[in-house]
């Protein structure tokens, strides 16, 4: 068993709008360029400017799929980051901070909410420390953490003299690049990759690139000359071939381009709109041996309209989609039933966040599984499918569009905020692994046509608006085979049976390796779905290194639920552990509905912050040692 030779976690924090994200992008880009694998995650408030945001980037020379609790090096340039995160830095880790802030007390930081301040004060009081930056740093020092004070003001002052540019003096906007560069100097990262990365990020603004590079160079040299005692270094490793650095929404966005989605309607909502904006930024598409194609990306007046437009477009035979989050999806459910009864293939990419209502608008949650499964009034067929990571979401997007076309149903593709705000390295998406199957979509129609003709498999040949001789009608009412309203009871039975039979067909036809993925089954076996996959498989390998085998079955097809198959997968497991980022263990409920079997333990998190592998590891340890409660609730993360 190989042990990670490098497992380094870097955290940068600061007020929203101060460049935390671009700082983290530079850091991630540099690490990835010199061969490391990256797992980065952004946390932020529902706010434009001023509230605390941070980015934790884990770096390794092996494949990693999650964050860990401990921070190896924290780069800060404001007081709040220190107050909120000093506790997470590991012994022998380091904190880079602005020495001008040492006397700042908690009351000066107006964005610290009262609940947090109260807890911090209580803690500092118990340790006999003042409620100041100096106080918390003293505690850090006692823990064995290295402190790296830098006067950001003096550094800029000296830099501006050095490069003879008085404009740099007091340019607070540069603090993020300075913090990144100090970090890289401290860990001896090759400086040229830093400068290249800045060039790449500011490629359209050469003047800004220039001053950023001056600041980066200066800060890098400052840290490497002044601070020598940090024991961690990242000097580069062997590059893995065909690695890309991607943001959370790239999987579904690029997946949509490749699998031929040519119409996307949406209404702005966190964390889903990044996908639509990315699609619009790349709206003209290159096509092999053909003229360019394009995606029509339409911003609508609300999610009801996004859903209606998508369905209208899908009726023309166009692969069509929308992307939303819980509150938006709530508005879409009436039309979801319309798509169901009219057998319209559409894909709704559902980037979940914490509910209910607006909940924690910019935080993570797997809150909407039961909602997605039960969305819409009346009985109608739909498919709910969940991706576990960004790489998977690329291939799954292709599958979702095929399911929609093959079974002529709406497909809800479950994603979430954990995935959308991650930045990771992964294997380059392989477009040759995507297949396109449009099912019974017709290119031409001869003779009499009935859109909802009864067939052996329940699926009728599908015409499209504008096709010669393919006239059909749709209605949200029950209809006859032509699509005209019918309230006849015999017809009603046949039509309901026809539509609902497609669920059985989907279960039969969807390959089992697309329904669920087994990462081993042992006495203790985890069941889960969606983005918990990454932290679970990392926790699984942490335990493996200690000689403890824990099984894990990732369920991807959540509706119709593959009960029989899951049951057979789990037959050798004696203790089941359900891990989910919601309050009620929603998968567990579906599981028990479909499989008459108890779940022994639940590991749940609903703070809005994603799970770390450390947390899952700790809970699994407790379970194995028989010290766990039936319901373990996690709460790591500021």
């Amino acid at each position, binding site marked *: 068993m190989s042990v990670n030779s490098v497992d380094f976690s870097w955290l940068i924090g600061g007020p929203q709008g101060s460049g935390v994200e671009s700082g983290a992008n530079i850091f991630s880009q540099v690490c990835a360029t010199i061969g490391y694998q990256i797992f980065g995650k952004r946390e932020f408030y529902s706010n434009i400017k001023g509230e605390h945001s941070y980015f934790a980037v884990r770096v390794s020379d092996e494949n990693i799929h999650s964050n860990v609790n401990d921070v190896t090096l924290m780069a800060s340039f404001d007081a709040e980051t220190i107050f909120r995160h000093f506790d997470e830095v590991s012994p022998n880790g380091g904190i880079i901070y602005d020495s001008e802030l040492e006397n700042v007390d908690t009351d000066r930081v107006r964005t610290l909410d009262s609940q947090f301040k109260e807890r911090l004060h209580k803690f500092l009081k118990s340790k006999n420390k003042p409620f100041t930056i100096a106080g918390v740093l003293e505690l850090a020092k006692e823990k064995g953490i290295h402190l790296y004070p830098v006067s950001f003001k003096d550094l800029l002052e000296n830099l501006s003299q050095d490069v003879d540019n008085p404009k740099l003096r007091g340019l607070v906007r540069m603090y993020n690049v300075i913090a990144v560069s100090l970090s890289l100097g401290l860990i001896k990262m090759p400086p040229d990759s830093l400068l290249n990365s800045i060039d790449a990020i500011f490629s359209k603004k050469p003047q800004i690139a220039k001053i950023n590079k001056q600041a980066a160079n200066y800060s890098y040299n400052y840290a490497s000359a002044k601070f020598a005692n940090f024991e961690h270094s990242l000097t580069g490793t062997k590059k893995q071939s065909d690695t*890309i650095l991607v943001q959370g929404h790239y999987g579904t966005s690029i997946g949509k381009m490749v699998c031929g989605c040519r*119409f996307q309607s949406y209404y702005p909502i966190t964390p889903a709109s990044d996908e639509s904006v990315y699609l619009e930024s790349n709206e003209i598409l290159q*096509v092999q041996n053909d003229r*360019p194609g394009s995606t029509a990306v339409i911003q609508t007046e609300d999610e009801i309209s*996004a859903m209606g437009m998508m369905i209208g477009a899908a009726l023309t035979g166009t692969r069509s989609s929308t992307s939303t989050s819980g509150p938006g999806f709530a508005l879409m459910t009436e039309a979801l039933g319309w798509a169901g009864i009219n057998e319209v293939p559409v894909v709704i990419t559902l980037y979940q966040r914490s509910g209910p209502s607006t909940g924690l608008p910019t935080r993570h949650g797997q809150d909407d599984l039961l909602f997605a499964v039960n969305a819409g009034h009346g009985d109608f067929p739909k498919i709910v499918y969940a991706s576990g990571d960004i790489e998977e979401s690329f291939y799954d997007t292709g599958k979702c569009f095929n399911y929609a076309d093959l079974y002529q149903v709406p497909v809800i593709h479950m994603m979430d905020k954990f995935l959308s705000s991650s930045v990771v390295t992964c294997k380059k998406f392989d477009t040759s692994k995507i297949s396109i199957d449009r099912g019974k979509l017709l290119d031409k129609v001869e003779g009499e046509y009935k859109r909802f003709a009864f067939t052996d498999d329940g699926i009728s040949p599908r015409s499209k*608006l504008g096709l010669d001789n393919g006239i059909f009608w749709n209605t949200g009412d029950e209809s006859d085979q032509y699509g005209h309203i019918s309230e006849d009871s015999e017809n009603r039975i046949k039509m309901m049976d026809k539509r609902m039979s497609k669920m059985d067909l989907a279960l039969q036809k969807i390959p089992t390796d697309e329904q669920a993925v087994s990462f081993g089954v042992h006495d203790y076996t985890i069941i889960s779905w969606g983005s918990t996959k990454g932290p679970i498989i990392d926790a699984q390998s942490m335990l493996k290194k200690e000689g403890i085998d824990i099984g894990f079955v990732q369920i991807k097809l959540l509706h119709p639920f593959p009960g029989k198959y899951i049951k057979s997968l789990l037959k050798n497991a004696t203790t089941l552990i359900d891990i989910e980022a919601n309050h009620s263990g929603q998968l567990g409920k579906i599981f028990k509905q479909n499989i008459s079997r108890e779940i022994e333990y639940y590991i749940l998190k609903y703070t809005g912050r994603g799970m770390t592998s450390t947390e899952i590891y700790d809970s699994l340890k407790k379970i194995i040692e028989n010290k766990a409660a039936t319901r373990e609730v996690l709460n790591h993360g500021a």
Partner: protein
Amino acid sequence: MALKLADYKTDVHNDWCPGCGDFGIVNALQMALAEMGIKRDKATIFSGIGCSGKTSHFINTYGVHTLHGRVLTFAQGGKLANPEMTVVAVGGDGDGLGIGAGHFVAAGRRNVDMTYIIFDNGVYGLTKGQASPTLKLGEKTKSLPSPNTNYNVNPIGLAVASGFTFVARGYSYDVRHLKDLIIKAVKHKGLSFLDVLQPCPTYNDINTRDWYAGVDLAKESIERHSRIYKLEETHYDPVVHYAEESEVNEKLSQALIKSLEWGNKIPTGVFYQNEIISPYETRITDKIPNYLENPPTKQKISENGLPTTDVSEILDSLQV
């Protein structure tokens, strides 16, 4: 072979009440389609919910009977994915100006090249006659327990203010005039709106056929007494002729003022037309030059089951 009026009719039983104004609208629509010679499989009628929602089933083109208030959303999606198709959306005043008012306004801003017809009768017929958005404040139609407590929406005024580029009113008992208006509306480049006054013989006992015909006025005068008159028979010029603010403002405010006329004289015909404002399709073409030649519905996305979209440039840019 030239298509006849009968070709645009389905054999679906029409279950509207005898004497319903809706018949005139569906007839006018079929006549307009026949006169324009639009091929049956190149047109889609989208409809909302309510009596008027059934319209799409009576017309032998593609027909999409959607959801209450949402007809414009479906119609715009269909049109933008297949811009070659003739799209007409229909619905009641409750559908379009009550539950669907947000979509009405947003559609005006977009100006997609299609037509929207509101069957305007002041009541929710299919749910037994509740007050709908165009019923006047204080009026008490037959099945209301007490007089209407809401002020009425002005459909023409709202359309003009929302950015519709063709705004007209028809009367369902003047089928020929209505047919001509529909043809003008469909030929208009941009979003056209037709407010069609349509008596509901069952639930609206105020704005009846006789009332529009001015039968009550006849007692006072022996002159022509119909309340309905045609703007084209006056000196009214609805067209924005050149792209100057003063011209646009004049035609907009003229339409708005005209839209307030009600009572003994009710104007029909075109209130406002502006073809200088670009349709949404042109706005897309500004970004995607071949959008109209290669719209979503026509795009080839695969060859032998494999995707043909080439994203290598994007993927290469992400490679580290």
